[in-house]
């Protein structure tokens, strides 16, 4: 089995993950602020949730598209 694509070698992926990591903590928002409330949640909770959602999407793409081995290729060929 040989690795054709390895996620760790993809620079763009780590830039995206790095940015999402730093934005996942609300250091850039004013302390104590919570208005406007949207659907019962403070505005910043939505920002954090969306950021975390983006992390999960990025991970899904990375696992599916950036991690390829030779067996994947042969399996695909067989299918």
């Amino acid at each position, binding site marked *: *089995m*040989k*690795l054709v694509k*390895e*996620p*760790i070698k993809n620079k763009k992926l780590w830039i995206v*993950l790095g940015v999402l*990591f730093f934005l*996942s*903590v*609300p*250091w850039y*928002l*004013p*302390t*104590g*602020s*919570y208005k406007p*409330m949207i*659907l*019962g*949640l*403070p505005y*910043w*909770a939505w920002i*954090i*949730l969306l*950021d*975390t*959602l983006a*992390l*999960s999407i990025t*991970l*899904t793409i*990375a*696992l*599916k598209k950036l*991690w390829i*081995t030779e*067996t*994947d290729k042969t*399996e695909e060929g067989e299918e």
Partner: protein
Amino acid sequence: MDQELAFGGASGILIMLIYGLIMLAIGIITYKRNKQVRDSNEEYYLGGKGLSVMVLFFTFYATQYSGNNIIGYAPEGYRAGFEWLQSITFMVLVIVGYLLFAPRLYVLSRKFEFITPTDWLKKRYKSKGVTILGALLMLYGLGNYLLEQFVAVGQGVSGLTGDTIPYQAAVIFFIIIMVVYSWLGGMRSVAYTDTMQGFALLFGVFILLIGSILYFEGLPSATDYMEAVAPEKLGVPSSEGITSWFSLISLTLIGAAIYPQAIQRIFSAKSEKALKNSLVGMAWMPFVTTGVVLIIGLIGFHAYAGLDSAESEQLVGIMANYIASQNTLFYWAMILLFGGIIAAIISTADSVLLTFSSIISKDLYGGFINKTAPEHKQIFVGKIIGIIAVIILLIIAWNPPGTIIEIFELKFEVLVQVAPAFILGLYFKQIHTNAVLAGMVIGTLLAAIMTFAGWTPFGFASGLWGLLVNTLICVFGSILFQAPEKEQQHAQEMTQV
């Protein structure tokens, strides 16, 4: 908070018995189907490297999420408010940790037939020091992790059933069940029971959410209430909150993925496709697990305002109890929740115990003490030492030594110190064996000393400081004292994928 418990007594005992019997049955069926399971390390500890995507996903899930993710995290949400959103993020970040090493390690594990995480260290560094120290650090971390699960299962059972089932009886009952099914079928039993336990955990969390919304009103009224009485729980956290948030997500990013029991699951995958797809699933589970638990904690703040820190620890029990007293349907639903919480704890403990035994069997006994021992003997020794460890941990759980209790609190801090050797070794042939060893020793000592002394400079956890120093020693040590050409060549061959 004294309350008449709605679901203590006979029904509590009944659900525990049924639950224990189902797990036993899974163990027996697995054993009957795979009678040779105890003759080879690969069969016993890795389920013959044949876990399919669904089983693999659930065993990852049930191993990573324990009872504490419900009974401990809801009170965190209660006390911290929206700051505890971090519990969703850090559980997602665990998967980023896997991306750092899983693809390459999986390929290597097939090429060199790894059974334990230490096998990789042994193959890569060919150093007794690194292998033994790595194995010991993992054993130590695993032992303490197991201890934590034992304490949790006892407290969970006696707390949720209003002490109908005394703490000790509950712990012993579940440990015996757990040991029997693990012994019967090894990783297969553990993974199949994890599948059932994972379902139970998910079901329990959702049923509690539904009950909370129905009987304590929903999240919007909880946040309205919060705005009136405790707006700080709604607001963006202060700088201290932000620092501890960064500290926690950084530690889990590296630490949780490197758990030895998690690594062994990578080795157990039937195919790389199964591994990838189960990790994809894991990237989404935080939303439906820790996210849901956060909502429950926030609703709990509205329902039971004014609990102090110790009282709030009982939050899930208090809420479940109230919901159970509403009608028969919810009464049984809450009993299932109780089963789900116990399931979550046991499914973490069984995986930890199995990995613990595998390190004893293969790395220490088979690797150094009796190199010619056949595999079934290695497995036997691993089981026996596992049991002795369980007994010692139980004694500690019930008679905690007063003065050195902190040494049992070191888990993550110690486990995470294996990460540089593990991860850097995968990608850099220049890494010097002695630098790795020195980094591990100094990182561990530093993390331990800082934990005992309670130092957290700039608000960052002691484990992170240990990890930072450890990594720096690995990197700069390797630059200053270059690894000999021969070692580099060996490393090149080892990491070729």
